[in-house]
């Protein structure tokens, strides 16, 4: 039977005249044509399976492959747009050359391609062609006297023989497989599996919940005491962000901070953290300091300095009682922009510390790029006296205090003190406590002096979840 291509001639959007359909640059199908052909293939199959309902093993599986080029932007940027276009044409040719005549290849736009593998197609044949496409498209291209190399990530979804899947769902599944391929490191293919859908849905829900969390008042700050190792006195608290969700319960920072960063929520959350910490701290007896983590993103919109100044003013907290903790990577990503803002903050009277030292580049340049008041040794070195000694010595000679993080045992505490650390923080001294319990902790430390080796009551709470405590 000859099928009539109903949509083979569409009107040109610009001139209103008929034009040849498809992607002008590559000669492949375009997005609309691809959707038409996919829908037509699926409905043809449906018609067949209705006519032969008894046929148990129907041969006509088909598959959709979505293909994204990796590093295409770099080619465009370095070799120019004409070379980029030439590369897209070569990709289209390689793609077409690797397929059967009855398969459809399309360029959906930019560097996104799609393939419809016509029946008969199985999971095995789909995997084989997807693997071949990844390899073939990743071979070098000679363009305008230069060599260009891109990679390809492929997501594939199959509509098995006898099965029924709507076109839109098939495309969405291929897209989820593509997300997986990219997440697994690009330059590879993934076939859709139901688990991907579950993961995608779980992620979408988490995203929606996280976007709403601030407005719904689900964030809270917990505070972990910091101790002066010479006097055994409590000197301050670090504010740590917690998310209490009505159904999820307490969500560990590990499971939402990275997502909040991806969704670019950290500047807003960070502002709330500073405001709340200042307001909480104003009522604390003995005027201990409060330390707040500042995320890399907070340096990027120019709000950081004014929002902190506003938080201090609104709460009435003396600037000297507020400490800001920045990581090396936050400085690295923002360069002089970050340093300028830190200088402005220091001018306000705020204290600045370098957080998680030892985990990133740990560069001396970084340590000297700004007059930090404090360097905090990452918790992973709590049992490493050599590192503690080196950093404490460095800190002392640069006029910085040195805080050991993640102290869990009395032996660690004694050793860290012996190696020259000036302050400590960790489960041995106290786990982070809700804002309402801070006054109780202050009282307790005032009474027993927080003498290490004679652990503070309450510290022996089971610390099964010694995860990284990070705040925004």
């Amino acid at each position, binding site marked *: 039977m000859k099928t009539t291509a109903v949509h083979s001639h569409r009107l040109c959007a610009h001139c209103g005249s008929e034009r040849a359909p498809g992607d002008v640059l590559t000669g492949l199908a375009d997005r609309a044509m691809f959707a038409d052909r996919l829908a037509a293939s699926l409905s043809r199959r449906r018609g067949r399976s209705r006519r032969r309902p008894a046929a148990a093993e129907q041969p006509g599986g088909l598959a959709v492959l979505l293909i994204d080029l990796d590093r295409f932007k770099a080619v465009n940027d370095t070799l120019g747009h004409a070379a980029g276009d030439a590369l897209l044409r070569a990709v289209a040719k390689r793609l077409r050359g*690797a397929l059967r005549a009855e398969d459809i290849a399309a360029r959906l736009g930019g560097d996104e391609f799609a393939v419809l593998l016509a029946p008969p197609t199985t999971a095995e044949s789909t995997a084989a062609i997807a693997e*071949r496409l990844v390899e073939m498209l990743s071979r070098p*291209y000679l363009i305008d006297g230069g*060599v260009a190399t891109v990679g390809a990530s492929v997501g594939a979804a199959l509509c098995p023989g006898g099965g029924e899947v709507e076109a839109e769902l098939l495309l969405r599944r291929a897209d989820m497989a593509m997300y997986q391929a990219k997440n697994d490191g690009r330059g590879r293919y993934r076939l859709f599996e139901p688990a991907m859908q579950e993961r995608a849905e779980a992620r979408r829900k988490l995203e929606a919940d996280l976007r709403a969390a601030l407005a719904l008042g689900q964030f809270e700050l917990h505070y972990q005491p910091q101790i002066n190792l010479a006097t055994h006195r409590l000197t301050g608290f670090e504010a740590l962000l917690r998310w209490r969700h009505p159904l999820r319960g307490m969500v560990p920072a590990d499971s939402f901070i990275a997502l909040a960063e991806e969704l670019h929520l950290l500047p807003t959350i960070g502002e709330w953290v500073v405001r709340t910490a200042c307001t909480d701290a104003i009522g604390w007896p003995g005027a201990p300091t409060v330390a707040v983590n500042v995320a890399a993103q907070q340096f990027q919109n120019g709000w950081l300095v004014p929002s902190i100044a506003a938080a201090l003013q609104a709460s009435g907290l003396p600037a000297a009682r507020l400490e800001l903790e920045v990581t090396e990577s936050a400085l690295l990503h923002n360069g002089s922009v970050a340093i300028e803002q830190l200088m402005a903050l220091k001018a306000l009277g705020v204290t600045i510390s370098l957080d998680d030292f030892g985990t990133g580049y740990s560069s001396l340049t970084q340590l000297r790029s700004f007059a930090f008041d404090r360097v905090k040794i990452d918790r992973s070195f709590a049992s490493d006296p050599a590192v503690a000694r080196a950093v404490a010595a460095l800190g002392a000679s640069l006029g910085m205090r040195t805080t050991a993080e993640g102290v869990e045992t009395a032996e660690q505490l004694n050793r860290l003190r012996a190696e020259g650390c000036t302050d400590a923080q960790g489960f041995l001294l106290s786990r982070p406590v809700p804002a309402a319990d801070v006054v109780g902790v202050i009282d307790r430390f005032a009474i027993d002096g927080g003498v290490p080796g004679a652990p503070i009551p309450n510290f022996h709470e089971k610390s099964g979840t010694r995860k990284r405590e990070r705040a925004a």
Partner: protein
Amino acid sequence: MKKTPPLVRLVYVSRNRLSGDAATMEREVANILAVSRRNNVRAGVTGALLFNADCFAQTLEGRRDAVEAVFERIQCDPRHSDTVVLQLEQAVPAFADWSMAYGGRLDDERARFDRLSNDADQATRGAAADSVLALLRSVVSRALPALG
């Protein structure tokens, strides 16, 4: 007036995806050679090819646009994979008398390039290109010119 594209030389290696015993492989390579000689004469491209069980090494010479077209056609061929371009530069043809000189099968340590990747640095690739070229020259000069 349109400028004539410059003469270039391309050197690349790729992974051999032919299967079968030595005789089958030789036959398949003979087919590849026959087709490439026909195409190269038409395109005005010259060069040399050798292979072993692991890889192909090939040089293509000629006008830049012609070399690019021939190379692109070869990249669509599933009988090899994982192409690494070692050299692409303006050069006087070294195999001008050969539509595609055949170095034959060389199961030799000198012809092991399977550890090269597209991420290799310029110096590594340059050195590899030189050694592939030297290898091609040495085997071609020993072969019978009647093949061309």
